[in-house]
């Protein structure tokens, strides 16, 4: 195979991994609490701005800045659950209500970030060096490799969390059946809070990865979350491996179209293909078929 093609695939996989990182928290929140967190990308954007300010402070070392960013992400997530979602849930809201509240948050967070830091494009200090590795004739950037590495480790941790810990078990139980889970003694409110915290901390990692390949800007996450969401739905929203697969597919697809057809048409082709797949398989590639009882 030609080296350009392999490079395109690797870059596509790295982009797809970023999509997976961005959307994984969203899927986690959706599965546990049935809130489609449209604002997930904007939370990542906000924490990246926080990281930007932390890193600009000379007294704070890099590792502490990253750690503080994760904590900030978790705090923002728990705040959203406490301040908005819990109140509406108590009233028995539908999924549509949640989506619209998240839409409001999406706008507000973008506005707040624009107000505090300004709407211009800022270069973000590099966390990962820009050097490349040569394997045969193929040039692979260290960025792409580290993004893939971070994603792999996080996914492994997430898998172990869901399968081996009590909190993970409780989250799966809440997804399966809320009432039964409550009767079995799952503290739903606490688990919801933990879900939001973990998911938004993951979003802040995603933000740090995204900003490596673009500029820092209040609107930077919108194209990412669009395609990440597309990947998640393509793979099947209710299966974590499916989400991962879907996102990687979207990344690779986009990369191939960008190199061989047209950069301007990346988005158009990606969405056209996803729509076609969804028409054939409405629950995504790995999703479960849904049946309705009358």
């Amino acid at each position, binding site marked *: 195979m030609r080296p350009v093609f392999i490079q395109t695939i690797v870059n596509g996989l790295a982009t797809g991994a970023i999509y997976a990182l961005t959307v994984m928290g969203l899927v986690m929140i959706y599965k546990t609490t049935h809130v489609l967190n449209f604002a997930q990308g904007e939370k990542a954007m906000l924490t990246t701005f926080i990281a930007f300010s932390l890193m600009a402070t000379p007294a704070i070392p890099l590792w502490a800045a990253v750690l503080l960013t994760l904590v900030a992400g978790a705090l923002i997530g728990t705040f959203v659950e406490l301040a908005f979602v819990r109140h509406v849930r108590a009233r028995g809201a539908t999924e549509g209500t949640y989506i619209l509240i998240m839409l409001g948050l999406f706008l507000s967070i973008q506005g707040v970030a624009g107000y505090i830091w300004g709407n211009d494009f800022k270069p973000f200090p590099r966390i990962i060096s820009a050097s490349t590795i040569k394997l045969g004739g193929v040039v692979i950037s260290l960025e792409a490799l580290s993004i893939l590495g971070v994603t792999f480790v996080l996914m492994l941790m997430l898998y172990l969390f869901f399968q081996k810990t009590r909190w993970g078990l409780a989250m799966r139980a809440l997804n399966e059946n809320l009432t039964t889970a409550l009767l079995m003694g799952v503290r739903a409110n606490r688990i919801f809070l933990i879900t939001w915290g973990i998911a938004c901390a993951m979003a802040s990692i995603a933000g740090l990865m995204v900003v490596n390949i673009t500029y820092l800007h209040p609107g930077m996450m919108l194209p990412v979350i*669009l395609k990440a969401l597309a990947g998640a739905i393509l793979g099947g929203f209710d299966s974590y491996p499916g989400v991962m697969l879907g996102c990687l597919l979207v990344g690779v697809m986009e990369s191939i179209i960008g190199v061989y057809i047209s950069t*301007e*048409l990346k988005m*158009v082709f990606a969405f056209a293909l996803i729509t076609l797949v969804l028409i054939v398989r409405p629950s995504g590639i790995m999703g479960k078929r849904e049946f309705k009882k009358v």
Partner: protein
Amino acid sequence: MKKWWWKIALALLLLSWPLLTMILMPDKTYYDYVASLVLANVCIAVGLGILMGYTGLVSLGQAGFVAMGAYTVGILISKAGFDLLSALLVAAILCALTGFTLGLTAVRLKSTYLVLVTLGFGASIPHLLVYFHDLTGGHNGLQVAGATLLGLPITSGKQFYYIILGVVSLLVWCAFNLTRSKKGRTFRAVRDSEIAAQSLGINLMVTRATAFAVSAVYAGVAGGLLAPLLGYLGAEDYNIMASLNYLIMVIIGGASSLWGVMLGALFFVVAMELFSNSPAGMTLVFFGGAVIATMMLLPRGLASLPAVLSKKRGALRGR
């Protein structure tokens, strides 16, 4: 009914608005422009209201249809010398066909996934506009000039206002009749229960696709009406954020009432104009906050405010 007199008052106000601005502020055309903007947005919002409130489908890609209408009219007027009305007709047909096709995908998809398909449509349109830059001007934008109505050139903002008022009033009147017609009841049946509607012999596919086509026509015609008024079309003005604006109007106004939706459009455009000089980001914070507040305190939008208030008053009186 006590309702008829305020409808007449509204009609009088709308008809005399350019005269009022001429008397009160003779040197400014700004208020005619804002009023035209409100009317065009009312049209888009009513279309989206039929889709969201009456059929229960959400579209996050309305700006795509607005762009389609605007560019069709813009290109036909300035490059092919079409009359405004015939250009609008072409735009409406094009939007109806696209909307119908997009709506066909809605049949097999869950609501969350449908949101994605419309989102993808909305996100794709600006890219397509840039890609076909020979026709659309791409990043440089498209100048729209020389609009005529029935052969007569349209020159002033006041003339545009009356044209927009005429077309939008007609469409809004159609919308009210549609919601009371058999088709409108089919829309609501599908919204309330897909399965029950199907068991009554309602064709789900055609109903949803029709609702999409209707909302697309409303958006496209409004876009086409605005094209000669704005005089300049830029591909980036029709991005996802623009689509979100239409959603905000419908949510704040209350999707299940056409009057509410129109109120939402008015609220949005006026607030947008008031905020035009505010620091970066404040507009977004305001509208984001307004959407959250609406969903948490007044889930049925501004349209339900009178009912909620009178209920509260009743409770205070100890009823």
